[in-house]
């Protein structure tokens, strides 16, 4: 099972940005969602998730607001800023370029 720190540098950022692009989510939900969507392949550890969230917040890609969670407790919901949305597009682009490049190498005859 691939651990997030085995992921290509910066991929976690892409995953987080993508996950909250539809609606605001709190940290727990982000981790769960990534796990779910990836069919349990990608497990995001708390030790990476929260530092990454706080870094993205400091960099201005995402913002947070406190709100009531589904269980009725106060939770911190992260959502994309306009700049974050643009950043997500850029990261997607570069991810596509990277993965197709890797594909080319891996699938090549030589």
């Amino acid at each position: 099972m691939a651990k997030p720190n085995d992921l290509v540098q910066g991929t976690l950022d892409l995953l987080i940005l993508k996950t909250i692009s539809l609606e605001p989510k709190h940290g727990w939900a982000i981790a769960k969602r990534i796990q779910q969507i990836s069919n349990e392949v990608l497990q995001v550890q708390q030790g990476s998730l929260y530092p990454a969230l706080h870094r993205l917040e400091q960099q201005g890609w995402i913002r947070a607001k406190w709100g009531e969670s589904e269980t009725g407790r106060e939770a911190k919901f992260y959502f994309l800023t306009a700049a974050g949305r643009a950043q997500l597009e850029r990261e997607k682009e570069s991810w596509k370029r990277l993965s197709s490049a890797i594909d080319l190498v891996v699938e090549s005859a030589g």
Partner: protein
Amino acid sequence: MRWPQQLRMKALMLFRRRNAASRLDQELDFHLQQQVAENVVAGMDPAEARSAALRLFGNPTLLREEAQSFWSWNSLGKAWRDLRYGARTLRRSPGFALLAVTVMALGIGATTSLFTIVRSVLLTPLPFAEPNQLVMVYEHFRDQANLGTSPYNVVAPGDFYDWREKTNGFQDMAAWRPWGCTLAGNHAEMPESVPAAAGSWNLLALLGVQPAYGRPFAPEEDRPGAKNVVLLSWSLFQRRFGGNPSIVGQEVHLDTIPFTVIGVLPRWFTYPRATVQLWVPYSANFPVDKAPPHDMHESYVVARLKPGVTAQAATQQVSALQYRIHMEYQGRPVAEDALSRPMIEDVVSDIKTPLLVLFGAVTCLLLIACLNVSNLLVARSTARRKEVAIRGALGGSRLTLVREQMMESLLICLLGGTLGFMLAFSATHWLATHWRGLPRADAIHVDGVVLGFSIATVLFSALLAGLVPAISATGTALLAVLQDSSRAIGGSASRAGLRKILLTSEIALTVVLLVGAGLLFKSFVQLRTSDLGCSTENVLTRRYFLPEKQYNKPEMVLAFHQSLLERVRRLPGVLAAGLVSVAPGGGYGGDFVFTIPERPSEGSVVERDALYRTADPGYFSALQIPLLSGRYFTEQERLDRKLFVIVSKKLADQFFPGESPLGKHITRSFADKPETYEIIGVVGDTLHDVGDPIKATVYFPIFSGIPDRTSSATLVLRTSGDPLSLSIPVQKQIAALDPTLAMHDMLTLPQIVSKATASQSFSTTLVLAFAILSLLLAAVGLYGVLSYLVSQRMTEFGIRMALGAQRWELLRLVLVDALRPVATGLALGSAGAIAAGMLIKSLLYGTHPVDPSVFAVMIGSLILTALLASTAPALRACRIEPTQALRME
């Protein structure tokens, strides 16, 4: 456009940091609760669910810190935490903190203060227009190098006029010469003697100076015989004329001649020195009927460089012209060459070395202070070794630990620096006002650069004092420390070694400072006690000057001199009285070049130069200057019967070796008409200036009464009691003869000497104070190291005692241990001191860089201090009770 968001986060993190931290806890807790809830849903019981969640979650503190590490201002937060931590540690030992802060305050304060002065005096440009273009041009005699005098010789007016007229390398050249006169009001009221200067009409324009009131000299006012005009200095304008600008256009009397005030100089204009009270045109009192002389050296020439022409090229042109003048006046004292140097160098030439020496001394002091604090910190870090090791074992990074320790020294240096900066403020002010003879004292001020310097000094000191202890405290292998039995017998050898190295350097620096101070102090004492060549006890001197306008006939001058002598000789308490132009120690007082008709063309012009003095028949016996052969002047040798001179031993030895100069002649060649005088006596040498070598001197009879040559005189009195008690009676006698004569100071000979050596006195006292301070610091350092070593080895001493060691053996053990770094420091320091002595050689008088007595005294006092500092710990070691020591931890 993400910067508004970033800015918002920054502000949030800065101002609501505590809130953010608790929010982060909440956020992480929420995550944990979600995990617990999920576990419960999966069928675990609550306790199990919780511990499983925690296991998955990992170390919450670490997680929190990792998340926080991305917050802005994080390093600031850490620094703040370290700062609080450092402050707490310092507060726990207030004695240490106080000592360290005081030491640093003294070091940083002294360094900042001296830096301010050095920078203002040596580096700040002169307050004139385009000061970099200004140079001073001097004459240069090729013989001067052989005679060991300064190569820069003052310029004769004739040379200056030729230079200005016939060369074009400089934009312009201006000249000034020292002057002095009796200033009085229109009705001869309030006569006072004022130092003055005579400057060429273009001097102010060349320097770019505008008078505060009125106008500068006009070219036609700077000609012999022109209308008399005067410019007042700001201080005279304020002091004597109450700052009332209506003085411009009015008349004052200088030497009883009316002069019209045409202007007042600005307040900041204190060139060449602050004591100059007024300015007259350069050619004032030049004779109308004679061309300006080429052999009367008295002027200073300021020149402004032309853009694109180097000083060297311009001076070369002047030099070539000077050589032609020299050839034209062969046999007269006219120099062969011209030399120039930048004006700023000229202004500070006398003070540069003393200032740099002082700056070196305070730098030494600062280094010693840093080493001392460093030493104290090492001692403290040793006590906390285990704590540091445990923290390291628990995952504290080395960087964090080093930073924490550094913060402590930074805190000490910051506190010390703040105090020191305040100290520097007052110290600089005090130095600037009390240092007599410090040029450009008015340029001294504390500014941003000084503040920057002192901040840099603080950081540098903190680094120096903190880095060594911090690195050594955290670097050791953790296990070794933790395994160290609490009952370690040997103590930590490496730690003690480090402290010994620090101590050795401290001692070495102290030796350099002590020996340097010792050399300067000895020079100063030699200066002060140098044998003037005459009796100095109970001697009172009083200068006076007879204005040539009133005293214009030899008979009148003679009559005044004689009546004054008769009157003061009758005063009770006066043992003897005499007259001389300049008293011993009273300064150069003018020289002249002579020839000896008995042996034509002997020696170069510069060599055939002697000091010019006039004296009355009673002068030599009054000051008890020994008569070596021949006789004194007689009362009959006066007015026209004047062609007799008395020479000093130096002159006799120099020009008449192995024979008697009596009956031989010397011819004065500085006047237009040569006059030949017969030598009638040889007297002992006197010093004209303490610190200067003895110079050949010729005494002419003051009773010749020739105005100009004899109208300036110094009355010398030998008294039976306190000479100063005669000041008022003597003043009354002078006023009774002529109430319009200016007041002058009544000085004893020692007062004259101390006035002349005031600047040396000042700098020597300072260096000595720094040296004593550093000696104290070294003693503190030694005491600290030794106390520590002894306390470390208490158990060992107890065992030794129990095994039968004698108390004196323990004492010796400790002392030897203490004195080893002292000995190494002494050896290194002595070498450094010799090097430093070579550097300050030019300041030494009557001693040399390797003066055994100075070395002996200074090293002796250092060893004594070291012994004193180590006695207390050593005694503690040998008084120990073995049982107690073995039980001690």
